[in-house]
């Protein structure tokens, strides 16, 4: 079938390392207190319901879907530092995940989201919507152009501020790989003070969410670049899996 890594078809996915991901209950991020299950998760070996997933074709993409400088422009381009964000979607065996739908959303340069429930006093940018999407190519690569988002305050602690970040939503080849995460920017001191980031247990896991400034991809006199790779769950080869017909 289209968009599949032929060498890895059919196997179940590596178990998710839940000591690497943030746990559900991270009380310094206050909203998690009442939104975290108290019971243990029930472990479910992969069945077809988890090993299959929706297909998204390139034909659903518009020409400006990965260009946030232009996809909401009304009277001109948005204000703020022009950046390219690019990288690869890989699995845990470092194989490219091709045909993966990647969606992203963010605040504008002043840290203001275009959302009716957002009331931060920083101004809306009339030329910036803040959403984009793309589908990875045969090498698992994606890229988009945008404005570097600003930090913004949020009602958690009395003086909490999110680091500059871009939200990412990624569809791999199976529903088991579904992932939402956030990308942060190299050198931002706010990263290490954020209760949402610090819900991640290890410093190493946080560092994997920090995009590096990419001087080689930076366009002179035009646009800075950041590189951000995303890793989805890997899957076993079928060599030693003795599954019944039908799965």
């Amino acid at each position, binding site marked *: 079938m289209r968009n599949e890594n032929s060498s890895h078809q059919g196997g179940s996915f590596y178990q998710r390392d839940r000591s690497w991901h943030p746990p559900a209950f991270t009380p310094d991020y206050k909203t998690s207190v009442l939104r975290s299950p108290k019971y243990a998760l029930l472990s479910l070996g992969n069945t077809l319901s988890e090993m299959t997933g*929706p297909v998204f074709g390139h034909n659903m993409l518009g020409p400006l879907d990965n260009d946030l400088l232009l996809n909401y422009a009304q009277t001109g381009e948005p204000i703020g530092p022009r950046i390219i964000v690019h990288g690869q979607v890989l699995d845990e065996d470092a194989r490219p995940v091709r045909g993966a739908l990647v969606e992203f959303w963010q605040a504008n340069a002043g840290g203001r989201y275009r959302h009716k429930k957002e009331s931060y006093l920083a101004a809306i940018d009339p030329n910036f919507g803040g959403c984009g999407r793309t589908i990875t190519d045969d090498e698992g690569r994606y890229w988009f152009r945008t404005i570097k988002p600003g930090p913004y305050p949020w009602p958690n602690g009395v003086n909490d501020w999110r680091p500059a970040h871009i939200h990412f939503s990624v569809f791999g080849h199976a529903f088991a790989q579904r*992932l939402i995460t956030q990308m942060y920017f190299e050198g931002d001191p706010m990263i290490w003070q954020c209760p949402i980031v610090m819900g991640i247990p290890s410093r190493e896991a946080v560092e994997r969410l920090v995009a590096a400034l990419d001087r080689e991809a930076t366009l002179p006199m035009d646009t800075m670049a950041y590189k951000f790779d995303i890793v989805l769950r890997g899957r076993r080869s079928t060599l030693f899996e003795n599954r019944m017909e039908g799965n």
Partner: protein
Amino acid sequence: MVQSFRRLKESASQTAGPYVHIGATPNFSGIEGVYPYDLGSQPLAPEVTGERIAVTGRIFDGSGTPIKDALIEIWQADAQGLYPGQGERRGEADPHFPGWFRQPVDGMTGVYRFETIKPGIVPYFDGRPMAPHITFWIVARGINIGLHTRLYFDDEEAANAADPILARIEHRVRVPTLIATHSGSDGMPTYTFNINLQGENETVFFDI
């Protein structure tokens, strides 16, 4: 020292946040004109085969308050029990049925609603039939990693009794948290599936 596996670690999850709608359902959030429609929101094509049903409910936090900023995705088989996507090698699913839908809960009431078809039977990995079910994936502000659960149907009693997943739930009092109840009709058969994130009647969530 021994040889290295050279494996990578999965990117750590982070919450979708309160503004997930900007990225996932921009037209719903008031950002119109970037995409022609919100992905996963399109009504079923008339050609889709199977029994039309609606699935509705709310998501409650540990205080019993409905959540008003969640996003739900569902993934399910077609009426014949075939998945219309990647990884399905048993046959060709209904070409008009997407199998995947995405909806925000209502910002005022917290109610979600999907119009879909009742899924057919899909085999467990040992070949035994699993009862008809819909996979749910829930993200929201305050949820650090997406929660997986399953909706089963209360009018599939025999199939549910034989379902290998439901059979593995040690605390039998928790089984009903996965069973949607049919509630007359709202123009079509409607099933109510409420989700409790925490506390009394906490829904069973899976590590898949």
